């Protein structure tokens, strides 16, 4: 800087290094693009995680809860198949396919949440 030179060899290395770091930060996102998974919580504890994008056929998941709860998962979706509770609000949540979609069964204390890779926490907006 004291030499008042605008650019030197070291500068190119520095800028190249920053670009490399940016690329490596971005890399995990490229790998996991589009992958979505369903997180099933019972009584606030994670019970099971299903990688929905890797499923090839439909499968049923019986949860050991009272009232009973059966989930149906397939490639890219999961939904409540049948429930032993009176109101079946969780089944009314329909088919969950997108990041943030959620079905909650209060009597069985079950939460099913769809999360897409790289979006573990999504904000609509953060403003400062």
């Amino acid at each position, binding site marked *: *800087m004291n030499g008042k030179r605008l*650019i030197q060899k070291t500068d190119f290395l*520095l*800028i190249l290094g920053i670009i490399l770091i940016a690329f490596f930060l971005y890399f995990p996102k490229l790998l996991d693009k589009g992958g979505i998974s369903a997180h099933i919580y019972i009584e606030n504890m994670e019970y099971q995680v299903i990688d929905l994008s890797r499923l090839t056929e439909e499968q049923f998941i019986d949860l050991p809860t009272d009232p009973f709860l059966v989930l149906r998962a397939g490639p890219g979706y999961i939904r409540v198949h049948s429930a032993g509770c009176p109101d079946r609000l969780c089944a009314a949540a329909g088919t969950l396919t997108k990041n943030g979609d959620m079905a909650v069964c209060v009597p069985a204390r079950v939460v099913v949440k769809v999360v897409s890779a*790289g979006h573990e926490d999504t904000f609509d907006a953060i403003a400062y």
Partner: protein
Amino acid sequence: MGGERVLVSTKRTALTGLLAALALALSFFESLLSPVAFLPPGVKLGLANVVVMLALYLLGLPYAFGIVLARSGFAFFLRGASAFFISLAGGLLSLSVLFLFKRFLAGRVGVLGVSVSSAVMHNVGQLAAACIIASTNLFFGYGPPLLLFGIGAGAVTGLVYWAVAPFAARVFGRTE
């Protein structure tokens, strides 16, 4: 003797205040600029960093430090505590980088390398502070674009510094 020291310190305070005002005015100016230049919201050139660099290289660390503090204080009064925290984190980290370059790599790195590193570290500091405030890891989402925009912004501020420094050196030379 004592009186002279008081005079010097008064001069320093006044000059730091002037430079801080210049930095704030430039920040305001570039906030008008970014819609015109089709930049995404939140991306700024960081022209105030030119003032910080001038202060550090031509006057010394205390001046530059004073400007960083003044900017953060201004952010606190206008936009609140989290803005203060984010501004301070960015300002201190970029100033630290400037200082380390000046101290240990003087003459081996050009103006562009210094200003780009400082701009990038400013973004890293702000992002880190934002992560702490939002208690989330935002590095993978916001890191890459912030680093790349930092390179662009740092290059522009470096050019501005390079163009302005000789004149500023003359002005500051008369002042001190």
